């Protein structure tokens, strides 16, 4: 899961000229992504190993994958995995950087290493919140609540919830736990809840709701803004809304990487969620160090 698209990273670190980046992003024909670049991008081979296999290809009439497996640089399963990665946007960009000689393989390897270091969520952040079999609990919760019309999208909903939990650990609190409970009952009653909401549209259409009691909302706002917030005011609302906006923005990057572009509408703050809507939501009740909250997804 990414914090930043590779193109953005290159621009911000002045690694690529702005005009060159525009022309690379603009290339309409899909770059034929070579296995060597895929292998470097996935950290499965070094640039030196890739160059070695390229040299071997000049002498032997064999495919890259075959030779890499023979040299024990890759397993067969790795080759299959790499071929599945071909459509990712950042990989396309990596290949274009090589094709247009912006970077050598060694330079690309160095850049990608630094990019991954700066932009992947750390395992530490995720490990802190793993109690019990979190993945299985989430999968089962989403499957059981998803209506038949949207059952084909459960992987995306699952990816969304995992991203949310990682960002929650990153910005708010280290100890979120998934509760085994109905969302409405979990919050005990619907009185005095505040809801942050944002619509996502494009290849996937859904509305995200973050539902919590007033005290939790204020604490959440304080944690995210790193400011002292004591009441529900414009700053508190802006803080919670901005967390949701940030999380969903990162979701757009990850979806775009998979060739599924989506976009956001501005977030809003509501005082309730209609019972009818609540009934149709995929609800993930979460116990946190600042109180209970419900992350809910309304597929559309």
């Amino acid at each position, binding site marked *: 899961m990414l*914090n*930043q*698209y590779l*193109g*953005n990273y290159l*621009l*911000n670190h002045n690694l690529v000229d*702005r005009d060159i*980046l*525009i022309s690379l*992003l*603009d290339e309409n024909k899909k770059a034929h992504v070579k296995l060597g670049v895929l292998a470097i991008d996935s950290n499965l081979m070094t640039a030196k190993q890739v160059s070695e296999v390229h040299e071997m290809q000049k002498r032997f009439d064999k495919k890259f994958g075959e030779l890499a497996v023979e040299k024990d640089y890759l397993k067969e399963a790795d080759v299959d995995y790499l071929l599945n990665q071909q459509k990712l*946007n950042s990989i396309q*960009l990596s290949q274009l950087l090589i094709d247009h000689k912006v970077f050598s393989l060694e330079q690309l390897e160095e850049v990608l290493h630094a990019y991954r270091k700066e932009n992947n969520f750390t395992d530490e952040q995720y490990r802190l919140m793993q109690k019990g079999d979190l993945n299985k609990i989430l999968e089962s919760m989403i499957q059981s609540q998803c209506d038949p019309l949207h059952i084909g999208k459960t992987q995306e909903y699952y990816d969304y919830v995992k991203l949310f939990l990682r960002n929650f650990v990153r910005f708010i609190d280290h100890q979120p736990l998934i509760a085994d409970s109905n969302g409405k009952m979990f919050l005990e009653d619907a009185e005095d809840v505040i809801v942050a909401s944002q619509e996502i549209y494009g290849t996937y259409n859904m509305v995200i709701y973050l539902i919590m009691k007033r005290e939790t909302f204020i604490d959440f706002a304080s944690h995210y*803004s790193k*400011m002292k917030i004591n009441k529900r005011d*414009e*700053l508190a609302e*802006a*803080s919670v*809304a*901005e967390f949701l*906006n*940030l999380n*969903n*923005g*990162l979701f*757009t*990057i990850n*979806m*775009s*990487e998979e060739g599924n*572009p989506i*976009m*956001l*509408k*501005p977030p809003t703050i509501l005082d309730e969620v209609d019972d009818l809507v609540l009934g149709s939501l995929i609800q993930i009740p979460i116990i946190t160090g600042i109180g209970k909250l419900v992350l809910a997804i309304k597929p559309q």
Partner: protein
Amino acid sequence: MSGKKVLLCDDSMLIRVQLKNFLNNHIEGVTILEAANGRVAIDIYKKEKPNLVLMDIVMPETDGLQCLKEIIDMDKDAKVIVLSSVGNKEILKETLKIGAINFIQKPWEEEPLSKTIQPYI
């Protein structure tokens, strides 16, 4: 005293407060202008001609892309840096093609932001 003007365009009060604090701490004598949506930003730009614009994308009424287009149409030399959470390939490409000079992915950090805005203020 810098005598420079920076226009902040973001519908989030939190972001505007954070950016204001950052700019006041880093640039002496800067004048900070604020807009909570693109339409207001365009009106302010016409009147004030700021040295630099920090622009969000996802905003109500007039969004950042439309606002960016109108500002660049009005002033080919406008210096606009996009500051947004939606840093995917499609939005990055479009904002740079329209004429943004840079794109900073939220959450922004002080040191990289400071380095990025330095040449324009």
